[in-house]
């Protein structure tokens, strides 16, 4: 039996750089950053931070059912919007395709509670000393929450809402592996198409932690860049000597993966082909990269460019760079490497999906977007980090990395589409 080939036929993104994958791409090529000041609360109670927020997002544009909107945390709203954009891009909104052979996989996790929603409930559940009294909570606090409250925050809800709103009855999953989750969702979708359990898969990730709870969480984890120097867009500096942490972003990204014959039959626009994935954990970067190349059956020197994770933390940047050096072994001194995070922030579960979208556009448009804010690299690495301006390049093969903290690692190989 012939191997089933998998191609990319739709892209959808909601990022700080705008609505749609094209807006993201254009801004990246122009070297624009979506990082700016953000604030929460009002007046004296205001919390000022910087972040890459999706500004002016109107969920009603994508979700007309008011009741559905009420049970969606912002992560879910962004996911539905990006899914909608990807389906439009692929021409699948109203296409007559077999819905039982069309599934969705989302990188997602525990969503942040909205504090004002819980605050009222907590307030009516305190004892005289201000501590939580579970008896009072059972009697007064709990009934003050709305009936579907739990559903607003469950990790699998982005995938559920997307399946319901767009009638996707095929395989449905939610992958929770941190900053690798978005790309790992794409890996699983790829496997499902390859083995024939579906013909079409929507896969990606969503995260919105640009809220008081999320900001405090990242602060507690000690991973935020402290030195902003008053210019937000210059703050996030992956691979740069001065980079000491990240800037929080938010958004959702989805990719339509499709079995090649299915795509041809409906005359779909084909961006690129996916040919291999690798995955490992526990500082598994090298294993993931080698695994992806092995599955793609190509040698390291055929790779023209790597869309890197570039977390912006010193240890993680160095380990990623060393993994790239080890796998490509200096076999290609002009190997181009680029990172998107200075422009769209650290987007957690969505990050791998965004970088895959970016590498897909690089393959189809023949250009690599620059890495912002890079002045002096941390080391003298045996590859070229694209900076200052786009590198016009006839790319045949691209690698995308999604490496999380603690080394959970996923790498993908995609190629320019040729019959």
């Amino acid at each position, binding site marked *: 039996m012939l191997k089933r080939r998998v191609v990319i036929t739709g892209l959808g993104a909601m990022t700080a750089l705008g609505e749609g994958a094209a807006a993201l791409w254009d801004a990246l090529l122009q070297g624009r950053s979506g990082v700016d000041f953000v604030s929460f*609360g009002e007046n004296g*109670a*205001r*919390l000022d931070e910087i972040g890459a927020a999706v500004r002016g997002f109107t969920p009603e544009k994508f979700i007309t059912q008011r009741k559905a909107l009420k049970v969606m945390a912002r992560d879910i709203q962004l996911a539905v919007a990006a899914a909608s954009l990807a389906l439009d891009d692929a021409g699948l909104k109203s296409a007559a395709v077999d*819905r*039982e052979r069309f599934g969705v996989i989302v990188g997602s996790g*525990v969503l942040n509670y909205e*504090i*004002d929603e*819980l*605050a009222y409930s*907590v*307030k009516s559940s*305190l004892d005289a000393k*201000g*501590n*939580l009294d*579970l008896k*009072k*909570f*059972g009697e007064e606090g709990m009934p003050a*929450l*709305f*009936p579907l*409250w*739990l*559903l607003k925050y469950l*990790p*699998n809800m982005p*995938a*559920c*809402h997307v399946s*319901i709103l767009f*009638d996707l*009855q095929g*395989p*449905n*999953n*939610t*992958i*929770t*592996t*941190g900053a690798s*989750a978005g790309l790992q969702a794409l890996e699983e979708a790829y*496997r499902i198409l*390859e*083995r024939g*359990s579906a013909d079409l898969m929507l896969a990606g990730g969503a995260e919105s932690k640009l809220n*008081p709870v999320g900001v*405090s*969480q990242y*602060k*507690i*984890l000690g991973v935020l860049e402290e030195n902003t120097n008053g210019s937000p867009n210059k703050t996030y500096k992956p691979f740069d000597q001065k980079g000491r942490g990240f800037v929080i972003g938010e958004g959702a990204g989805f990719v339509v993966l499709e079995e090649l014959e299915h795509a041809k039959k409906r005359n779909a626009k084909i961006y690129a082909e996916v040919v291999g994935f690798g*995955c490992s*954990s526990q500082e*598994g970067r090298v*294993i993931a990269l080698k695994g992806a190349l092995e599955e793609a059956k190509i040698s390291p020197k055929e790779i023209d460019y790597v869309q890197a994770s570039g977390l912006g933390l010193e240890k993680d940047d160095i380990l990623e760079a060393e993994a790239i050096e080890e796998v490509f072994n200096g076999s290609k001194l002009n190997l181009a490497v680029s990172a998107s995070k200075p422009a769209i922030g650290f987007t957690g579960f969505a990050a791998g999906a965004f970088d895959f979208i970016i590498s897909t556009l690089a393959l189809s448009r023949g250009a690599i977007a620059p890495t912002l804010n890079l002045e002096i690299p941390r080391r003298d690495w045996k590859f070229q980090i694209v900076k200052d301006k786009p590198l016009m390049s006839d790319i045949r093969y691209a690698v995308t990395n999604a490496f999380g903290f*603690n080394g*959970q690692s996923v790498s993908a190989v995609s190629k320019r589409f040729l019959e």
Partner: protein
Amino acid sequence: MSERKIVITGLGAVTPLGSNVRDTWDGLCEGRSGVRRITLFDAEKFPTKIAGEVKKFDISKWQKLISDFSFLGRNSLFALQASEEAVKDSGVEQNKIDHSRLGIYFGAGDGGFNFSDYASILSGSMNGGDEPVDVNLYFKNSVNRIRPQSLVEQEPSQVVNHLAAYFKVKGIVSNCLTACAASSQAIGEAAEIIRKGKADIMITGGSHSMIHPLGVAGFNLLTALSTQNDAPERASRPFDKTRDGFVLSEGAGVLILEELEHAKKRGARIYAEFAGYGGTADAFRLTDPHPTGRGAIQAMKLSLQNAKIDPSDVDYINAHGTSTQLNDQIETHSVKEVFGGSAYKIPISSIKSMLGHMIAAAGAVELIASVLTIRNGIIPPTINYEIKDEGCDLDYVPNKAREAKVNSVLSNSFGFGGQNIALVIKKFDG
């Protein structure tokens, strides 16, 4: 090249009936319930005051082995314990295995959430005790009081991170969370990873505990839980006419899946063959299954096709059987759609009648019970089955375990939000 076959070579469990597979299985065969009054927190004023808690769980070993132990959630502790039992049971530790060909795929839930701390931070961030919350104050209070480890351990994927470190896993590691279908889906995908040749051994299953104030409150608000607080052991009554919701429980179930030739080469004991997997979505509503059971029907059909067996080959169905009005009725209807008239001849039981609903971990423990059903020739019962419901008229193996020769089992798991997973296992013929 012939297709790679997958077999089950190890089992491990932590459940309300015992902290290992043997005690759990004995409890199931004896028809015992693990449901009691909640002791993990003060639930006196909650609509639901009962749950299936894991008791007598020995944490001392993990205390010594894991740094930051005090931050670990019950999800991680149960998973470590059950995985160690499964790995020992499979004997892979004694054999020199290639750790780059060893992977993990779990359906593990989140590590719980310290609601008391959170409430006190929130209440300390309201000026004069009124909303809205002063976000600046909230930020400062959180940063002062919450430890990074406790945040990290809330993440569902911390379970597989701990497991990967403990078992020195170098292959694929993943974690999915599709509510009540999660661990069945994890097992199905783990099997596909072996079938594809990306690993030879997968440690797979699930672990979860939602027995905490916000978990119980969340399900109570959805009116999904039984409130038969006066008779905890009789509260979970799948398919019985008087069923009034599911009973929340906790624990972990772990299976070692292995490529057949790999298992043979190292002389492993083979429990059963993993034969088929089907996954679909209802694409209907967040809380209710599709009224025609379309997603459940399709998942069962796909799993049978994948296993290359006919519906008539199935000897036993391990039901999702949550004890909610809708699930049990629509599951019954869906089974009839798939199996036709012979549905009445196939025993179908729900061990949630005894264990309660372990949410993400449920499917894995149910598959372990299915494996032991094949191996021991005993079908565990649906207890608390007393009054027949017209919409539920199959053979639910009421109240007493039954001896039967079972070669093939179908196990169902349906998640909140519409994910449907069906798994098929078969007796292994050398």
